[in-house]
């Protein structure tokens, strides 16, 4: 899922002034633990960038709303473990053909039953090339899917009866069931097909919440959701509703939390990162998120191919002091990377053989660099490309400086004015420098951090990395019928990545949030979004 970028104003000065004053702003009244089951929870969000159609929403602004008003076959609990939601069972014997049965008596909020057809139709729509859905690639592993021609009905989806359907994949993929909690796989009611445009404005779902009324989505302002009393899954709302207010800047949301106009925020502005934990104490969170940050040095750059490239990548990795940057620049709101995935994912390990390459070791760095120079002497400068509209300058400059100082070479950041320009030059392979990349998992699985990024020819393999050994291990892992066995293969695949360093791991983002004393039971999910349904609020 794409992280919504927010306009970053130059606000450090003002923030410093505000922070000096903020020490005296707390009140010490203890919150009553009594929750009111009709209370409305207010929280921050951002204007969805697309109509609210599950297969056409790939950013967090719309995702937060869809996750509240729809229920998929499964959902993820706070630890990212899958729990059946609409599904009664998802069964397979070979990790390639799955039989999915839906619970009886599930309904959309317009009274329509949730059937096998509700899923199959929605998936076929999302996959068809002519519909140009942003999340179409989620269906690419289903048999019959094609990027080259329009397919109205994929051969891999078969409705068996009212509540059962069968999914056949192109090849075995053991983590397929794990994906099914992602928004692209939500079902749609028949009513959606009458006029999908209009439906995207006033979606009808089957989740823990529903739109408060026609037109509850007030563009650029807010969306009002109320509890869906008919929802029977495990995410039943303990509160009366959810009001998501759209903010153009995180500073405004933070001010509203301080001013008591907002119950929960799941993002802290840069200006408050160093202080929010002191201000909100145990009503704040700073925990690892499923977001992996790195930079890629493509093979095609001069001096970065073959054996020489391997040595140079390892040298650069050793030259970066990740601890120092995460402390000084990010005030501890990033965690130095120890692998290519994220600590919140099942199967994460800090001790994968080869992970030493991530340790700061200037001597080893110089040694490796000299070895590479023996193969072919270094010339030119080393640059890291980034988009200047995303607040990346500080860390890119810091990393470049460390490389420059430790290796004694010329290293700088190479800013692109906008995200669009930056991503376009990466997609077109026009970029002639190293470049930053970030990856937020769509579903809690190790393979989601590896396959789309480093497999030969994979969609987001922006550095065109290719290693048959890695591909084989990934295929083995995905084909495994046993979860543990799959994890083991994925770990082995990462060992290869540590040798080749197709991307230089930097750190994991953390989720930074805070809430007011009027709310209780606030917990953040694996995907950094609060589990709103379990929050209780006492009316003052």
């Amino acid at each position, binding site marked *: 899922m794409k992280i919504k970028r927010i306009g970053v104003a130059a606000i450090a000065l003002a923030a410093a002034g505000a922070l000096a004053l903020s020490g005296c702003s707390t009140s010490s009244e203890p919150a009553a633990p009594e929750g009111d089951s009709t209370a409305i929870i207010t929280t921050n969000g951002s204007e*969805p*960038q697309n109509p609210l159609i599950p297969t056409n929403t790939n950013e967090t602004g719309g995702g937060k709303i869809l996750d509240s008003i729809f229920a998929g076959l499964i959902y993820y609990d706070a630890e990212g473990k899958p729990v059946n939601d609409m599904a009664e069972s998802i069964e397979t014997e070979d990790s390639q053909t799955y039989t999915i049965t839906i619970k009886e008596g599930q309904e959309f909020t317009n009274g329509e039953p949730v059937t096998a057809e509700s899923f199959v139709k929605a998936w076929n729509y999302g996959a068809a090339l002519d519909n*140009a859905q942003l999340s179409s690639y989620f269906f690419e592993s289903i048999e019959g899917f094609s990027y080259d021609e329009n397919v109205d009905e994929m051969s891999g989806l078969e409705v068996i009866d009212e509540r059962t359907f069968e999914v056949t994949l192109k090849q075995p993929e053991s983590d397929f069931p794990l994906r099914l909690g992602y928004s692209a796989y939500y079902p749609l009611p028949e009513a959606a097909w009458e006029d999908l445009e209009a439906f995207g*404005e006033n979606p009808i779902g089957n989740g823990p919440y529903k739109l408060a009324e026609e037109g509850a989505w007030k563009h650029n302002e807010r969306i009002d959701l109320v509890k869906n009393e008919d929802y029977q899954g495990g995410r039943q709302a303990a509160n009366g509703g959810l009001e998501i207010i759209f903010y153009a800047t995180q500073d405004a949301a933070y001010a509203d939390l301080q001013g008591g*106009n907002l119950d929960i925020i799941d993002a802290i502005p840069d200006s408050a990162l160093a202080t929010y934990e002191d201000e909100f104490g145990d009503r704040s969170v700073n925990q690892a998120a499923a977001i992996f940050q790195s930079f890629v040095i493509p093979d095609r750059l001069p001096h970065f191919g073959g054996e020489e490239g391997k040595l140079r990548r390892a040298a650069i990795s050793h030259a970066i002091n990740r601890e120092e940057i995460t402390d000084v620049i990010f005030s501890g709101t990033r965690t130095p990377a120890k692998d290519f995935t994220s600590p919140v994912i099942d199967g994460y390990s800090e001790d994968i053989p080869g992970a030493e390459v991530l340790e700061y070791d200037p001597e080893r760095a110089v040694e490796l660099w000299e070895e590479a120079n023996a193969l072919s002497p270094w010339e030119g400068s080393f640059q890291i490309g980034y988009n200047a509209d995303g607040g990346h300058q500080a860390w890119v400059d810091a990393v470049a400086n460390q490389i420059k100082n430790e290796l004694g070479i010329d290293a700088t950041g190479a800013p692109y004015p906008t995200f669009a320009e930056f991503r376009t030059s990466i*997609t077109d392979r026009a970029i002639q420098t190293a470049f930053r990349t970030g990856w937020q998992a769509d579903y809690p699985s190790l393979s989601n951090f590896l396959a789309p990024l480093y497999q030969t020819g994979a*969609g987001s393999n922006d550095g065109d990395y290719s290693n048959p050994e890695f591909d084989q291990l990934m295929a083995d892992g995905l084909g495994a019928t046993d979860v543990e066995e799959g994890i083991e293969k994925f770990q082995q695949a990462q060992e290869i990545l540590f040798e080749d360093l197709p991307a230089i791991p930097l750190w994991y983002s953390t989720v930074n949030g805070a809430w007011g004393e009027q709310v209780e039971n606030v917990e953040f999910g694996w995907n950094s979004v609060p589990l709103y349904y379990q929050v209780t609020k006492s009316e003052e």
Partner: protein
Amino acid sequence: MAGYILRRLLQAIPVLLGTTFLIYFMVFAMPGDPIVALFGEKTPPPQVLEAVRERYNLDKPFIVQYLLFLGGIFQGDLGISFSGEPVSDILARTFPVTLRLALLSTLFLMVGGILIGLISGLRKGGIFDASALVVSLILISLPIFVIGFVAQFVFAIQLGWFRTTVGPGAPWGDLVLPAIVLAAGSFAQIVRLTRSSVIETDGQDFVRTAASKGLSRRRIVPVHILRNSLIPVVTYLAVDFGVLMVGATVTEGIFNVPGVGNTLYQAIIRGEGPTVVSFVTVMVLIYLVVNLLVDLLYAVLDPRIRYAK
């Protein structure tokens, strides 16, 4: 007079056509593919990219895109944003909010700035004058986001006099604090302009004549001095109103005002051609109308001014 207005309005047509063309071209020529950016850090398959581009007509050559857009305008269709909302709806939603904000802000400027400038000018060199100059100097040297954040922190969060951000529907009451912050930026100019203009007018012959023919100061100040001092001030206020109408992105961001500045900023970042061009077109219109009104106001303020036939 009517002929003058008509001629000015006719002049507006080529200006509007020219600006839409220029802006459309600039958005089109902006480096980077907005559709690629829609996918975030993920790299979509080229076929999907092509299909999405087609949906927004972005696969067609520039001139075709522009003509399609222009054709739409004449049918009252300004296109749709990436989020599927008609651009006309976005305009109808955001401009009233920004208009309220700009009106309030201008009101504060007129009442506060002109009054203080007038008193300063009449008591040149006094304590009031000196302190007004110092205060306006401080305000003019502070960037607007500093004023905004401090005002929000002190008056909304600490004292609780105002809502921290603008609430649903952006009611007038919630817009008071952002309007004051916005006004603070131009406050110094208005005070100083009024002050120097008042000082100059005060020294004019007709003021001395008025005094010598026995008119009271109470009558001289508003009728002779103030009225004649207002021409540069009104010009500035009008231009400033135009600036406020086209959006105060920083202030709107701080107070989360769902107005023009915020929306346009997002649209530019996303490369949404139709939204950007429609907004800018309306802005140009506003500028033209405001400037026309100012020119007409001159005649009211100074009867010596006549409009060429």
